[in-house]
């Protein structure tokens, strides 16, 4: 078992562990394995200069972590099988991790043992948005209510949008899954988004910084010699992970040769393969048209099915698609005829579980599960004819293997079970190919105008949330445009959550003192942007009465209802008749954004000091 963590600045790495939470009686010293200490022109703060020693500079570099980051690793050896251990990370004698029982792990059961296995599979989650959190929560609630925890989980890639940089891993992966990561092993497959900054051939990049995967068959299987693809055993299941993104998929090339060798040796009762690019999909990607996907189907699936793989788990396409029991569909485009072995729904209470012979046999059928629905915006292009379930919902898949039965359930973001299928391997089954199997209904793509209703398929982020805290004033003297600049003392200004208002309109901060005294309220709020060059759209969603002018970093970006000039000189304030929030795109704002802290400033005008209502309630949104 490897325990990996990071600190700002160096430490004295020690891990203590033991079988009881209160008795961590074993101790292992860790080692620093990587560091980020600048170089290549990155500016280094004076406080890190003393750390730029030859020894530290000789450490492998963290790809894009902040300067001063040190990564530590501890390998715990000689552990008992199928045993829970509690652990704590210490800086010398000082404990860093909390003593709440959440820092623990359970070792693998013996290979081949017949114990039940439960794991969670997700893909394309790394957006940092509420959908991602909801999918995670739904899983946690399900396993909690069933009193049956996970043994581990699989991530089929795209865990750190948009380009798999270190900061994206931090905020969109580690922080999002923190509670599960500290006590359940995550077995990863690299997605194309991680691939922008990680290289499968060299094993360099934030993705490879983040994970320790087996290269020398430490967890079973044939040694791959690389972290890009690997296999492992868990009880009676053998798992195979491939890098579908940036390695050759050709038979005869290393990854396919390794796959063949690994399958030749695999003796588990179940074979499960996972990677990022789905061989069959018509979700947000089309496996009939894209080479990455076509090649996984044409070149890799034949090896898998001749090796007896039972289930293939993938993502990339932002949808949930689950196939019938199928075999031999390697052509382009994909048709269902003669490749479906059982066209039922696989539900034990419906058409019945899919049946295969006991043991591992070539070409008795595979179930394909595309689960790229853990957070990114969903999308569908058409109907993949081999699919039995096509569901546009956020969620993940809980898989249970109990002896001769494997069950998969898609748990959606609300915790509901949206799909259920089972495969039973018992006795001898002779597969038959159906000439005219069941096919899903054709899908008519909605018109463009309707397409946006579910939200656009781009990453959307709230930069300033509806109830965010702002600095504001209506009674301090405000002159000129100084107050809109990034640096402004705002002395005597108040703080409070938006919206600001009085009367019948929905506000949070009551500013009724303003009535009859002032018509203008000035407000400022900071927001952060990590990668300005990726922002495609900035938008202001604002409910207001009656008029406003908005500024970003001192530049006016939009106004509504203010005729001329600004501040106390503003002229021609129009009464706003419309009710509710209105959206304003801010195309001109893109040029004035900068990496790091930015400031949005808004002056809100009432048409008259006598009016009984006033409101300013802004939200700032970003597309990247």
């Amino acid at each position, binding site marked *: 078992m490897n325990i990996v963590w990071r600190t700002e600045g160096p430490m004295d790495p020690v891990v203590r562990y033991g079988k009881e939470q209160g008795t961590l009686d074993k101790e292992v010293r860790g080692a620093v394995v990587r560091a980020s200490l600048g170089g290549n022109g990155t500016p280094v703060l004076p406080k890190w200069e003393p750390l730029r020693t030859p020894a530290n500079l000789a450490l492998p570099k963290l790809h894009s972590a902040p300067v001063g980051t040190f990564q530590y690793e501890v390998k715990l050896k000689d552990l008992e099988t199928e045993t829970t251990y509690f652990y704590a990370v210490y800086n010398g004698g000082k404990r860093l991790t909390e003593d709440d029982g959440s820092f623990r792990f359970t070792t693998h059961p013996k290979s081949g043992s017949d114990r039940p296995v439960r794991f969670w599979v997700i893909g394309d989650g790394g957006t940092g948005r509420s959908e991602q959190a909801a999918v995670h929560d739904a899983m946690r609630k399900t396993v909690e209510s069933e009193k049956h925890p996970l043994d581990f989980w699989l991530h089929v890639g795209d865990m750190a949008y948009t380009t798999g940089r270190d900061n994206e891993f931090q905020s969109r992966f580690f922080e999002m899954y923190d509670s599960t990561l500290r006590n359940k092993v995550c077995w990863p497959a690299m997605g194309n988004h991680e691939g922008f900054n990680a290289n499968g051939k060299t094993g360099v990049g934030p993705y490879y910084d983040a994970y320790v995967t087996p290269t020398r068959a430490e967890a079973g299987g044939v040694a791959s010699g690389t972290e890009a693809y690997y296999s492992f055993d868990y009880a009676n299941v053998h798992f195979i992970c491939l890098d579908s993104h940036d390695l050759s998929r050709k038979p005869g090339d290393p990854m396919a040769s390794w796959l063949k060798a690994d399958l030749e040796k695999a003796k588990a009762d179940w074979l499960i393969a996972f990677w990022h690019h789905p061989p069959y999909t018509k979700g947000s990607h089309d496996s009939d048209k894209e080479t990455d996907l076509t090649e996984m189907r044409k070149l890799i699936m034949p090896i898998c099915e001749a090796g007896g793989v039972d289930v293939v788990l993938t993502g990339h396409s932002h949808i949930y698609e689950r196939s019938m029991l199928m075999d031999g569909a390697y052509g382009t485009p994909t048709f269902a005829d003669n490749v479906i072995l059982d066209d039922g729904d696989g539900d034990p209470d419906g058409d019945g579980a899919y049946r295969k012979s006991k043991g591992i046999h070539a070409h008795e059928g595979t179930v394909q599960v595309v689960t790229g629905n853990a957070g990114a915006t969903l999308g569908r292009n058409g109907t993949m004819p081999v699919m039995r379930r096509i569901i546009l919902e956020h969620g993940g898949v809980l898989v249970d293997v109990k002896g001769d039965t494997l069950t998969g359930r898609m748990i959606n973001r609300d915790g509901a079970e949206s799909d259920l299928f089972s495969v039973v391997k018992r006795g001898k089954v002779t597969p038959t190919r159906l000439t005219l199997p069941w096919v899903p209904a054709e899908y008519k793509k909605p018109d463009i105008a309707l397409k946006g209703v579910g939200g656009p398929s781009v990453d959307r982020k709230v930069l300033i949330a509806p109830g965010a805290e702002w600095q504001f004033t209506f009674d301090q003297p405000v002159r000129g445009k100084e107050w809109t600049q990034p640096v402004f003392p705002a002395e005597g200004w108040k703080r409070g959550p938006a919206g600001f208002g009085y009367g019948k309109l929905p506000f949070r901060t009551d500013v009724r003192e303003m009535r009859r005294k002032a018509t203008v309220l000035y407000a400022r709020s900071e927001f952060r942007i990590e990668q300005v060059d990726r922002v495609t759209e900035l938008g202001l969603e604002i409910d207001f009465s009656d008029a406003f002018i908005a500024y970003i970093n001192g530049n006016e970006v939009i106004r509504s209802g203010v005729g001329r000039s600004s501040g106390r000189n503003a002229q021609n304030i129009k009464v706003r008749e419309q009710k509710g929030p209105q959206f304003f795109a801010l195309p001109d704002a893109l040029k004035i954004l900068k990496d790091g802290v930015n400031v949005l400033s808004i002056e809100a005008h009432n048409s008259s000091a006598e009016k009984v209502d006033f409101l300013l309630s802004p939200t700032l*949104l970003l597309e990247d």
Partner: protein
Amino acid sequence: MRAALVTLGVILCAVPLFAHEGPEGEIEELTERMKRNGETASLLTERAIEYRVIGKLPEATKDLELALAFAPDSIGAHRELARVLFLGGKANEAIAIIVRGLAVKTNEPSDLASLRMLRAEIYRSQNENKKALEDCDAGLRLHKQNPEWYLLRSDIQKRLKAHKERLAGLDEGIRETGAGVLEIERIETQLDAGQWNAALPLIEAELRDSRIKSSWLIRRARALIGLGKKAEAETDLKNAFEEIAKRLNPKNPDVPLLLDKALVHELLGEKKDALRAYEEARDKGATDSVNDRIKALLETPEK
């Protein structure tokens, strides 16, 4: 909270937005982004990768050339451009780009190694095996952790019939990476070098440990043929053939199995059947080395 999100969804469709559905959508979005904010090396490289995925190599080339103009020190952009040129059949232009890339100063030796290895692949495709070997050796000195590169070098050494160096190189790879494919390649090398007695016990051990045995039965047959034990070899080959026949998908056979089937035929002296299986494997996407097998087979007289 939910109500707020619904509002956002509806409101947002009022402004033009670019759904990224698949590579085409991604390209559209990147194009739009660059129109607004200007072109950057990283965005151009991203778009080029999408172009490559859908096979639009000229567009990918154009983007990468521009990306290099913006970021002349990006080794990644050099590598991508060279790869796209090579894929498009422009091997010499690809080599010229690699030469430029190798001149870039970097702290990351694996970057330079990846350029070297790409050039080795290109040289190999031009049958310039000595030059290819030089690049492999240099690349593997810079970065030792990629089993794929040891295999590439082994393949080039095989073409040069440098079996001794090939074995030594694979030993190094096994030490450095532990990769199972290198162990297999090592046994293949022993067979190519005629070291039948050295290979045999290793093959026996693998056979005992394997669920699927045909590949190892074929390797044992090769060793037995080398040792003059024709009858025993034939039994192995027939058993291998039987297992292969059971596993072959009747409609869509997979390439590694077809290659094994072809080899069984070849070793049994069934030239026509061997050719047919090799050709089928080639048509289904086997690596170029299958062409060498076909050529060699066509040159041998019928038994």
